[in-house]
């Protein structure tokens, strides 16, 4: 039984590799439109050359505030992170997900309860939590108009959860945070696949960009930043539940 199974696996693996090698060979030597893999590539065909020689400052350019543009977000760093290099940002979100998952697996499972907090935290924490959540929501909604974005918004939201956790106000349990994180991750990749179905390349900006300076500008950039903010906030919040045990009452010692 073991010998039959390993023979089948070996034959299947060799056939799979032969199919992939054949496809790469066909792409390398075909003579259709585009650039061949085995050509001596000219400098004028590279993407970097085209971007370096682009000029928006001559007389007949129409780049102005309140007009249309190639990528119409007013914050240039946002348009690099969330439109020109969206692939790198998605893979970094995957790296963060794997490291937090490893942290949950490695921590030992015996936990203590939190000691009771002082009266200053107990009385002022509901007001402070409201202000912190409002700041976090403002920061990812206006990510393409002013400094900020999805990543610091996630950190600020998780600090609000930490304050609620230390002062025993009602915060969602760990299971809720895991569900929110999984849902945001699935929606990020679903957005990439929808862009592939509509227009032919993965993570293409398929909504129309408005005018520079409006709040509804930049295509899919506000949607993407909201998903990233929720994912980062729920990941960093579920770290605290592995240190201390949640519960209603506490013991005095």
């Amino acid at each position, binding site marked *: 039984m073991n010998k039959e199974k390993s023979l089948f696996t070996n034959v299947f693996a060799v056939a799979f590799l032969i199919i992939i090698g054949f496809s790469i060979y066909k792409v390398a030597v075909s003579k259709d439109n585009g650039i061949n893999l085995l050509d001596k590539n000219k400098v004028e065909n590279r993407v970097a050359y085209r971007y370096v020689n682009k000029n928006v400052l001559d007389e007949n350019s129409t780049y102005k505030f309140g007009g249309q543009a190639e990528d119409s977000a007013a*914050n240039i760093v946002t348009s690099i992170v969330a439109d020109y290099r969206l692939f790198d940002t998605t893979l970094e979100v995957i790296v963060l997900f794997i490291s937090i998952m490893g942290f949950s697996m490695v921590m030992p499972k015996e936990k203590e309860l939190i000691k009771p907090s002082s009266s200053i935290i107990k009385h002022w924490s509901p007001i402070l939590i409201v202000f912190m959540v409002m700041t976090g929501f403002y920061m990812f909604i206006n990510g393409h108009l002013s400094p*900020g974005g999805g990543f*610091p918004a996630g*950190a*600020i939201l998780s600090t609000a959860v930490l304050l609620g956790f230390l002062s025993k106000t009602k915060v969602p349990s760990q299971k809720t945070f895991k569900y929110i994180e999984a849902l945001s991750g699935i929606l990020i990749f679903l957005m990439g696949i929808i862009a592939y179905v509509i227009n032919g390349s993965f993570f293409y900006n398929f909504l129309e960009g408005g005018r520079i300076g409006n709040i509804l500008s930049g295509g899919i950039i506000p949607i993407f930043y909201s998903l990233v903010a929720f994912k980062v906030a729920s990941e*960093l919040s579920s770290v605290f539940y592995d240190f201390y045990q949640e519960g209603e009452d506490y013991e005095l010692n």
Partner: protein
Amino acid sequence: MLYAASILSIIMVLAAIWVVLTPNLLQAIIIFALVSLVASALFLFMQAPDVAITEAAIGAGMSTAIFIFSYKRIYKTK
């Protein structure tokens, strides 16, 4: 502008030397939050407001909190 940036840089490097050389571990963790705060101010001098907000929220907030939680978990009788 040059004087303000140079005073902040000297404070940051001296605080980093203090973190490495002190024998008290709880003191080292709290001075590390000071290093992160001054680095966030230096990011603002380099005209990078996005990076300054991110470094202030994560370096001085979350990282110090996780270090103190694990310190209390390890040295639990004191």
